[in-house]
């Protein structure tokens, strides 16, 4: 039965125990490196932008080790490898296209027009109105100091206290 062809590289390839053990040790070392880099980046905030890329790189490395040796894709039929690579591709498409949308939305937060140009025009109008309102707000007296700054003496400040 299966004994005869168990080493032909089909479904029944036996991965040597030393390979499994070394993979496990490599995974533990990579985990320590992940925690180490995170602590290092906490200490050096100016390099903080490296946090996410490094974490994803290390996690991808660990995941690749699991897929190749623990899940046996390295020794498996090529079709399963194609499925695994396709899976990663789908996730990348999902992520990249969503981010392309959501990271560029803010510029047109208030959508009133129907075209990009109309939006931009409307955006300018809103900005101008906002400026007007904000400057107007500065002229509204709220505290006793505001009354003095605006050159008006409040009649009832003491009365309210």
């Amino acid at each position, binding site marked *: 039965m*299966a004994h005869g062809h168990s080493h032909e590289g089909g479904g029944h390839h036996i991965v040597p125990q030393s390979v499994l053990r070394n993979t496990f040790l490599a995974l533990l070392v990579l985990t320590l490196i992940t925690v180490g880099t995170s602590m290092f980046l906490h200490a050096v905030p100016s390099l903080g932008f490296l946090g996410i890329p490094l974490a994803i790189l290390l996690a991808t490395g660990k*995941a690749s080790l699991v897929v190749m040796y623990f899940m046996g894709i390295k020794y*498996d039929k090529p079709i399963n490898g194609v499925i695994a690579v396709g899976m990663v591709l789908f996730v990348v498409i999902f992520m990249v296209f969503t981010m392309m949308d959501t990271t560029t939305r803010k510029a047109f937060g208030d959508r009133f027009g129907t075209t990009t140009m109309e939006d931009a025009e409307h955006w300018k109008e809103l900005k101008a109105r906002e400026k007007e309102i904000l400057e107007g707000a500065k002229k509204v007296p709220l505290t006793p100091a505001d009354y003095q700054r605006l050159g008006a003496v409040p009649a009832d400040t003491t009365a309210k206290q």
Partner: protein
Amino acid sequence: MSTTATAIDTGHHDHDHDHPEYLQHHFVSADQQFDSAKMGIWLFLVTEVLLFSGIFVAYAVFRNWYPESFHETFSTLNIVYGFVNTCVLLTSSYTMVMAINSIQNNQVDKMVNYLFTTVALGAVFMLVKTVEYKEKYDGGIFFWLWEPHGHHYEHLANVAYASIFMKLYFVATGIHGLHVLIGMLLLLWVAWKGKEGRWSSDYYNYVEVSGLYWHLVDIIWIFLFPLLYLTS
């Protein structure tokens, strides 16, 4: 091809029946049955990854929109819990491959022991997770709960959008934890059937495919750990 070789082999084996008991009639050979099961599980794993990638995409979008909020909220998670659980799951993946290695060498008892160890490590993972959830719950934060209080969590009440990160944390680790739980039940069943002598080096399809599922759950955690606990 090995497929044809097996078909001829089983022909020779024929006495009372024309194929081994475990070989279902719609497969040409045991090898074909094994490969089909494996490919089926790989396709299932693709759908699993797409389920989790929805959560990862939500994480990316909200982190991009509210970086300050994420930064503030990260600090309430305890790295020690995350680190311990990472080591526990990696070890459980190792005992899982050792279980498969044992049955490939026809060592049934060894396989059963490794499977029970894997389940036990899964239980340790869930226990740590429970302690962690309990702490959050006591601080007024849970899946459906957002009333942060107590000195460790109360400042979150003043952080805009802080609940987004915490709810993402609960949904991500919750669905992951559910997978760990299902994996544990699956492996318990596989170990039980192994005790009954159902698996051998000729037929261990269920051990193999449960292992693939267990490793995927491990891979998901490999990404969740740094993204939730480390990259503030």
